[in-house]
């Protein structure tokens, strides 16, 4: 995309540029988060909820450095994805044939969801802070970390529901997002809902180390976010061209 020289200094050109910056911040952070994800020994394989307190404590003792590295990285870069979701809000507010109500509710859900996501790494990192702590307490922190990380999908449910409804109601001549984004959004939602069972199950596919609750949930979210990156980028380009900022 080429920003036109004559539009360079206009606010609407800046609006396009800042959206792109937010997009690329999120992309860079996502890469770093991927590294942190790979670096956390507790994800390879995901720790079983059936481990005893002593096993969990010895896990934190044996892998302290890697746990600290990955959780500090999650702490630092996790919420850097937020600008990306804010770009989605900006794009939702552009949808012509609706009242913007979905955009506001989406934003509200994004903020609440982010507070929870910001909490998970704190439990893991606190458990790794003093690996010599009473194993029962390490187990408690580990449980809380896993539960917060996997189970509270409600805000993503709300987010994706609002996004899907917004896309379906955006039925003017120039939709912001293609219609299949709504389908994808709902599909992701349904893939993630079962992981709420992780707060109850200690084994099987729905436990927090199970293929549904862990791999399907996280895989769906990662895929959705990556696809949305390209979808949003294309939407920003269309916005730039519609507003006469770019060619």
């Amino acid at each position, binding site marked *: 995309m080429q920003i036109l020289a004559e539009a360079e200094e206009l606010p609407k050109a800046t609006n396009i540029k800042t959206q792109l910056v937010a997009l690329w911040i999120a992309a860079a952070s996502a890469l770093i988060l991927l590294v942190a994800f790979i670096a956390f020994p507790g994800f390879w394989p995901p720790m079983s909820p059936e481990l005893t307190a002593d096993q969990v404590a010895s896990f934190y003792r044996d892998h302290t450095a890697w746990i600290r590295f990955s959780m500090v990285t999650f702490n630092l870069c996790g919420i850097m994805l937020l600008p990306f979701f804010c770009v989605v809000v900006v794009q939702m507010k552009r949808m012509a044939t609706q009242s913007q109500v979905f955009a506001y509710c989406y934003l509200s859900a994004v903020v609440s969801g982010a507070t929870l996501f910001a909490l998970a790494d704190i439990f893991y990192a606190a458990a790794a802070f003093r690996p010599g702590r009473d194993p029962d307490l390490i187990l408690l922190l580990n449980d809380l970390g896993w539960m917060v990380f996997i189970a509270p*999908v409600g805000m993503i449910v709300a987010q994706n529901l609002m996004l899907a409804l917004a896309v379906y109601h955006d039925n003017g001549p120039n939709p912001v997002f293609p219609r299949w984004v709504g389908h994808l959004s709902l599909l992701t939602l349904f893939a993630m809902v079962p992981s709420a069972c992780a707060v109850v199950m200690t084994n099987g596919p729905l436990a927090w180390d199970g293929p549904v609750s862990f791999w399907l949930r996280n895989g769906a979210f990662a895929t959705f976010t990556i696809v949305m990156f390209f979808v949003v980028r294309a939407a920003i380009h269309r916005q730039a061209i519609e507003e006469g900022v770019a060619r």
Partner: protein
Amino acid sequence: MSTTVLSASGGDPVAPHAAPASKRDLWIVFWIFPIFFGLFGVIFVLLARVIPPPRPDVTTDQKVQWFAAHATTIQIGFAAVCVVFGGAAIANGYVAYQMKRMSSGPTFAYAYMGSMAVGTLPGLMLVALCFLAATLRPGRQPRIIALLYDLGMLSFNGSLGCFATGYLAFAIAILYDKNAIFPKWLAYVSIWQIVTEVIATQMWVSSAGPYSWNGSIAFWLAVIVFGFWLNCQGICLKLATDRQPAGSRPLD
């Protein structure tokens, strides 16, 4: 407090392109408000057992027994909360959206959205996590289970500031509004809510009696006032949705 009243559409810019005749998007979001709070009531009263609250003045063993007696319903209830609690964000987001249509500027609409979005964590999710952690492993040490019991109940009933800020923002926005999105009395009613939140602070120092987290003053009166306020807010939200012209948008 206004003599001159703009029509509800007075300040609403109409969407730049073709305006639809339908308000279906508004109604879909509106109905999430009563559905969510209905579910919230059912889950918290019948399943999760935090309303009416368990007693603060019991021994560690009694807390363990309480969890053991209600483990199944707590697990079902709070697992459901993990899925549906996004409804709170949509309900609050819709209130903020209607506040954004007021002539009182966006400041307090954003403040309402922000404080309520933050409040979801201490006021709703933390108790779910604590109780789920306690019921996941009934074999945990009793002292840890007792800690989770206290932590859960205190965060659920004792997270006051987020909501007090939200109510304050709500009241101020209504009082300055000349588009009559919500009636003035709803602002005054929100002042009661702040008062009950202030009184509920006493549950942090009182482990029995009327000011404890299950007390007649700190809990029951506050819950009755909250229930009344929430119903008023829901009804006013319905009326505001009724009056909003199709195709209109909030003010910038």
